[in-house]
């Protein structure tokens, strides 16, 4: 093996193997960079050269075996495979090659699976049916990520309560959301069954299903407590508070608390909330202040898996994380390519 060949081989090797070779041969090798290590290894006298070459071959052999093993494993389990860690391909000059996109990041593979699913009959998830079932004899808090089907729970619960001739109140934090829900429910239950109460709108207030903002419900409960109006509280069977994470809103959060405290005892509470950190606290609280038990339905998994991509300002698209799908609570490792590109961007933001 001539000098240049050996140099190229060494440069293509991950630096940890170079350290392995340098152990016992080069003083304080762990302080050195790759370039310097290679230089020092090449500068050994010819009598040690043979030993080094033998070791190098040994290392290359074990590496190939390991890579083959990895490939076999990834072939067996295609789902959880991460894109193979790309070792930097080095040009003979020994400089890292920042060039056009390398084929090692397989775009096809990343973008695979994006598309429209086959139309399927809707089957409720177990947590959804669980929430509706528990509502028969306890309050329920649902904490699930956005878009995972909390509205389905609400609709089933409304149906269940209306079958028992009970009044249902549905509240949302925003007037716009109330209007949307009102239209949605009108389509579902018929216009004579749904009413709406907002700050300046009052339609069909005698309907069994009332949509309102939480502030309005709070005001109604205050008025009912002082005996001024009759809100048919005795028939009130279910109160649904959508977007309950507003409880932590600095300005309006207090309204949710007042509503829950003043909510009549015979009515069931259904709290629908985006994922929050401490839903069990909320559940314990309800359990403590309400005469009926409270059941917490916590669903962390998204119904549609989420994938992360990094788009470089040059238009290069690479995976964001080493794992393809984003999972909660397992930590994160950025894809090396993302790291490299982002570092490049931070040095030179305007391209």
């Amino acid at each position, binding site marked *: 093996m001539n000098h240049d060949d050996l140099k190229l081989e060494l440069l293509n090797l991950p630096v940890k193997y170079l350290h392995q070779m340098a152990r016992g041969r080069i003083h304080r090798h762990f302080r050195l960079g790759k370039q310097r290590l290679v230089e020092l290894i090449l500068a050994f006298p010819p009598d040690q050269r043979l030993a080094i070459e033998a070791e190098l071959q040994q290392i290359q052999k074990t590496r190939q075996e390991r890579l083959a093993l990895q490939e076999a494993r990834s072939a067996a389990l295609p789902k959880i495979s991460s894109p193979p860690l790309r070792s930097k391909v080095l040009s003979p000059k020994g400089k890292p090659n920042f060039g056009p996109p390398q084929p090692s990041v397989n*775009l096809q593979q990343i*973008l695979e699976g*994006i598309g*429209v*699913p086959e*139309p*399927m009959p809707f089957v409720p998830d177990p947590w959804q049916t669980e929430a509706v079932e528990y509502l028969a004899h306890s309050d329920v808090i649902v904490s699930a*990520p*956005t*878009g995972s089907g909390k509205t389905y729970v609400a609709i089933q619960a409304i149906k269940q309560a209306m079958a028992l001739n009970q009044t249902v109140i549905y509240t949302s934090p925003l*007037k*716009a*959301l109330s*209007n*949307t829900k009102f239209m949605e429910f009108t389509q579902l239950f018929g216009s004579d069954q749904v009413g709406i109460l907002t700050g300046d709108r009052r339609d069909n207030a005698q309907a069994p299903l009332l949509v309102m903002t939480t*502030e309005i419900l709070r*005001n109604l409960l*205050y008025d009912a*407590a002082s*005996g001024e109006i009759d809100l048919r509280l005795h028939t009130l069977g279910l109160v649904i508070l959508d977007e309950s994470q507003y*409880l*932590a809103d600095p300005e309006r*959060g*207090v309204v949710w*608390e*007042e509503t*829950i*405290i003043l909510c009549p005892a015979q009515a069931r509470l259904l709290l629908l909330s*985006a*994922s*929050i*950190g*401490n839903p069990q*606290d*909320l559940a314990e609280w309800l359990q*403590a*202040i309400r005469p009926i038990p409270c059941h917490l339905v916590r669903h962390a998994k*998204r*119904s*549609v898996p*989420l*994938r*992360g*991509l*990094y*788009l*470089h*300002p040059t*238009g290069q*698209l690479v995976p964001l994380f080493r794992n393809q799908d*984003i*999972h*909660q*609570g*397992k930590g*994160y490792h950025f894809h090396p390519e*993302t790291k490299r590109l982002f570092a490049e*961007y931070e040095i030179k*933001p305007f*391209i």
Partner: protein
Amino acid sequence: MPPAIHPVDLIEILRQHRLTPAIVFLTSRRACDEAIDTFAHSSARVSHQRSETIRTFLEKFAKDFPSIEHHPLIPVVQEYGVAAHHAGHLPSWKIAIEELMRQGLLDAVFATTTLAAGVDFPARTVVITQSSVRKSQDFTDLTISEIQQLAGRGGRRGKDLVGVVVITPSPYIDLHILGKGLTGYPEPIDSQFVVSYPMVLNLLKAHNLDQIEGLLAKSFAQFQLNQRSAIHQDHLDTIQEQLQPYGPRECADWVNQWKVFDLARRRKSHRQPLVNNDTPFLTACLPFLTPGRLIGLPKGPAIVLRQYRSRGTFAPMLSVVRAKGTIGECPAHSVTQIYDRVFEFQPSRTLPWCPPHVLHQLKKELSQLPARLPTVPILTETQEADDPLLAEVLTEEFPCPTCPSHSACKKDFPLASKLRLKSQQLTKTIQALRDGLWHRFQQKAEVLHKFGYLTAGSQLTVDGEWGRLIRINHSLLITELIRMDAFSGIAPGLLAGVMASISHDDDRPGSYMRLPSGLASVLTQVRAVADSLSPYEPPPLLRSDVAALAERWIGNPQLTWASLVRSTSMAEGDVYRLLARTLEFLSQLYGLKVTHPGLADIAHSAMVAMRREVLQELP
């Protein structure tokens, strides 16, 4: 900050990889509008067929909501299939965009992060370009829940197999905040319970004080306070346990006893002078050895020029002028006589320590001295009896020095006193956590009593009965204004203007409008009242430009929405929100029709005048 990538390129890339429809979250409204502007004349057009579909949809939509008919963004939306969606737009426009998005007719919506909190319209892809968001003048990092709210818009159930989050850098982005946000667990939520004046009135209307204390104890705020106090309680228990071995000894409260004893001991030691080697006689002499004093020295009489301390031994020294006219130094203890004679002069700080002509005069005086001069009698003070007395007190009143547990107390005192202090602090904290909410309620009730909404027995007065119906921010200001009759016979427009300026708490700058003189004087009164109430209720911004805007809308029924919006630099959506909020405040005043029929009438006519065009088109 806009993203580093050009918006047109961004959309092209997303289209190319079948990643549309997408929601692109940008930092500011301006960034969204500018991104849309860059599309003009670009080649990123949608197919002609889709463009037609969007056109027919918007035309049909404009029949129900005429306010969007001439929206400036319509050509871009039709041609390029992209739109901007932020709080600066009218709700009707936002509904139109959401509907277009739901039908899959748009490729991208450029939105601010406020979108994430409100309405629900998902897309296949979410593009995040920022890791921080502007909150009242300052940039704060996005929280994990906020990032997950953003990311949650990605992936439509039933329409997508996979949702995608695309991160593309803009200046000041921090990748790790986003990484953490996407993969972490959301933060726990905390109660934001505040006791407001209407809450106090409404609770007192229906319940007595005991019941209210129970109701407040049922709040999530109290639940969380109890949780925290439970942690403190655990801590307190362990400290109490550690305090066990330091129970009563010879005296029941030995820690306190030792503390006082220790203090007395230390004070005693401090009474001893630090460095003073002067004899009592010398100490008594020194006050007399002032500049100008005639003294007797072994070599003859002299006059003191200055007194000072020697550098080395700190001994008192004198500079004197002698009969020969020479200036010399001598130690103070060498003074043999102090005569009852002082020559007045102005001492100076440098040699010869007095003005030169005085020196000459002093020399003359010294040569003309009479033979006998009266001397000053020096009384030597006896040593102060303080120290022995204190020593006596220490031994007599404190049994500590002779107590059998003296050494044990001395050893344990530092630790025991530290533990005891901590346990006292914890007890206080726990008490404050347990009673905090109830105290806040009582404070508010006291203020209401002071202003005459409550009787001394916490019953609602006549004013309280109607005051509780005002359940909005700044309720105290509004009820006080009503009680002052500030609104009697006011024009509906002026009332709406005042309500608008009270309700508007956004400091986004707006343009200054010419203020009608009537409104200006009313606003000045309101501002004075608000300032006088500031110890009890934070005053509203009371911006006059928004007041003028609302006044103009109501005062002039012929004014069109377009010309109203043209007269201000506020965004259309902000004007809409301002008027909608004013409407809400007015409807609260209208709710007082039983007790204040006149005011309710004015409010009602203002509401009627307000509801036209854009304000009427939404259901």
